[in-house]
């Protein structure tokens, strides 16, 4: 992937597990909608360490993922994680995933400016490639939030 912008929008999740895959669904949509140069978009799937190369080559990374944190389905939160415990519950279905990557990059002193949009979901149990109505309805708001963030200047730490 050629870098065309300072910002990477990285959607992660498992698209076979219903709402768990919302980050991936959104990345696929944004890929079609966002012009090169504004931001780059990547469907990170369930990859963990394989995403290191992408994350560390952008000054700013906007992650999108689902969480099972008990809040009402569709709740959107924006956080700036520095440690694994800053990540909400059940972010990744892999044992060693994005959380570990963010921390390792912190220890390596190479963590870019990371923003994390998480959307609360009710369950990740059903084997489904569709999103639930509760999540579908907040996608426009989530997109707006991402685009607004892209418009802000990249903070230099």
């Amino acid at each position, binding site marked *: 992937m050629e870098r065309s912008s300072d910002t990477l929008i990285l959607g992660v999740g498992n698209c076979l597990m219903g709402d768990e895959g919302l980050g991936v669904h959104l990345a696929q949509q944004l890929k079609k909608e966002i012009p090169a140069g504004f931001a780059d978009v990547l469907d990170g799937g369930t990859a963990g*360490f*394989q995403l290191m190369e992408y994350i560390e080559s952008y000054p700013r990374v906007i992650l999108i993922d689902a969480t*099972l944190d008990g809040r009402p389905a569709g709740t959107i939160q924006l956080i700036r994680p520095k*440690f694994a415990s800053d990540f909400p519950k059940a972010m990744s*279905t*892999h*044992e*060693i995933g994005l959380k570990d990557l963010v921390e390792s990059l912190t*220890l390596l002193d190479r963590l870019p400016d990371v923003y994390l949009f998480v959307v609360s979901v009710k369950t990740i149990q059903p084997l489904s490639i569709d999103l639930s109505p509760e999540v579908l309805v907040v996608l426009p708001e989530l997109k707006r939030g991402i685009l607004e963030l892209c418009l802000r200047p990249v903070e230099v730490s």
Partner: protein
Amino acid sequence: MTRIVVDPITRIEGHLRIEAEINNGKITDAFSSGTMVRLIEEILRGRDPRDAWAFVGRVCGVCTTVHSLASIRAVEDALDITIPPNAELVRNLMFCAQNVQDHVIHFYHLHALDWVDVVSALKADPKKTSEIAQSISNWPKSSPGYFSDLQKRLTKFVESGQLGIFANGYWGHPAYKLPAEINLIGVAHYLEALEWQKEIAKVHTIFGGKNPHPNFLVGGMACSISLDDASGINAERLAYVGKLLKDAQQFVEQVYIPDLLAIAPYYLDWGAIGGGLGNFMAYGDLSTSGYRDVGNYKFPPGVILNKDLSKIHEVDLRNDSEVEEYITNSWYEYAGGDGVGLHPWKGETKLKYTGPKPPFDFLNTEDKYSYLKTPRWKGHAMEVGPLARMLVGYASGRPEFKEVVDYALSALNVPATALFSTLGRTAARGLEAKLVAGWGLEFYDQLINNIKNGDTRMANTEKFKPETWPKKAMGVGHTEAPRGALAHWIVIEDQKIANYQLVVPSTWNASPRDKEGKSSAYEAALKDTPVHDVNQPLEILRTIHSFDPCLACAVHLYDENGKHINKLKVL
């Protein structure tokens, strides 16, 4: 007696549950269970055999290449397709890159923290750390400043009260024996290995188009090589592959091996713990003259029984009385009943869960208790993996194997019997990475030579079209996955997959008991392992991790809360 449950065993790919009975500080019995279903065999039924590689590769996000490789070899075997030498070499190069990457990741990211105490590294003297690092290796990142910077970042990290990546460790456990300085070196290389592993994966991207899940092709490889073609794999790309392979060798020789030899002396007691079965099996791979030329395999095939290195038994994957899978203790049913073993060409995959209804505390290990079947070779339980490969190579008298094994034994001043242990398994993985890194460069030189001589053939498409196939065909394809011997069996009827069976390394190692009640490798290795504190079963992790457990291809997984259950029951 105390019965403890570790579920899931973390720092692996997939879900593994261990239940162990502990008496007077020692494990007296252990049960290994894969707690989710795979069933990719059923997904493949009725599909085009030329597509199978793409499905089976997805069985795992880590060792996708080996499954795809076993699959195309099974189809090529069934259809009697011989592939061009360059395709063999490219497959070998991908094998080597994956093997070395996997072993390094396993050692530093999945296993090292069983031996390296991260919190103790905070007390290290950076100057002394630098002296030790420079005394064991020429690796350039070894100045006092380098270690003191890292230590400062680590201190900040730990003082924030958030151990993060290091959160699941049993820090301060008395079984951690390393001096603070070696712990700091371990942490430094944990991070460096993380950076390095993303580079070597590019070999797969170059030859397979992408990573993970690079592309494969029945009949050869799906990459066009031409030295002066701007869009294909040209001289520049090939030179880059050469650099990646050289860097890999340097990392193994200057970081991995020196660390292994610096850590091992503090844990020599583990050279007598975790031995287990004493039966070892390798199918072999990495031929210098084509996959069918077994005699020229860098990894020779063979079986060792009862630790007897004086005799190598032959393995025949086609013989229906050699490899058989049993379900006596697995949640499946066979048409012929629970007592029979089936050769994979006649394999069946019909689920029948009879375990307790979740949530439950303990499995009923008197009955069926796993989604893994139980494979046996001529009725024997077998350990597969780097230790098995190194022992088969060693016992076959191969000079390269003898050299590295004898070197390690003399550097650690331990007898050959120490190989049959948790420590032996972990050391064998490192020694294997050293051999494979070197072989990768040999295969690379051969490929460059072929291309320079004008041979750019990469695929044999004579029998690619289904019209050219017989009405019925059967094949088996094998390789050596990082975790051990791997084979796929296929039956093709009317141009479609009629049956497909994978027998993966972790099924050999992690399976439940057979019909005679004999344990497989994990269960056997845990027996007699000392457990200092049942609330912190670090010792179980050491032995299980030494196998490089990876259950994604043996079972499916997910646990929606990512919960680390650590249950205790005093019986």
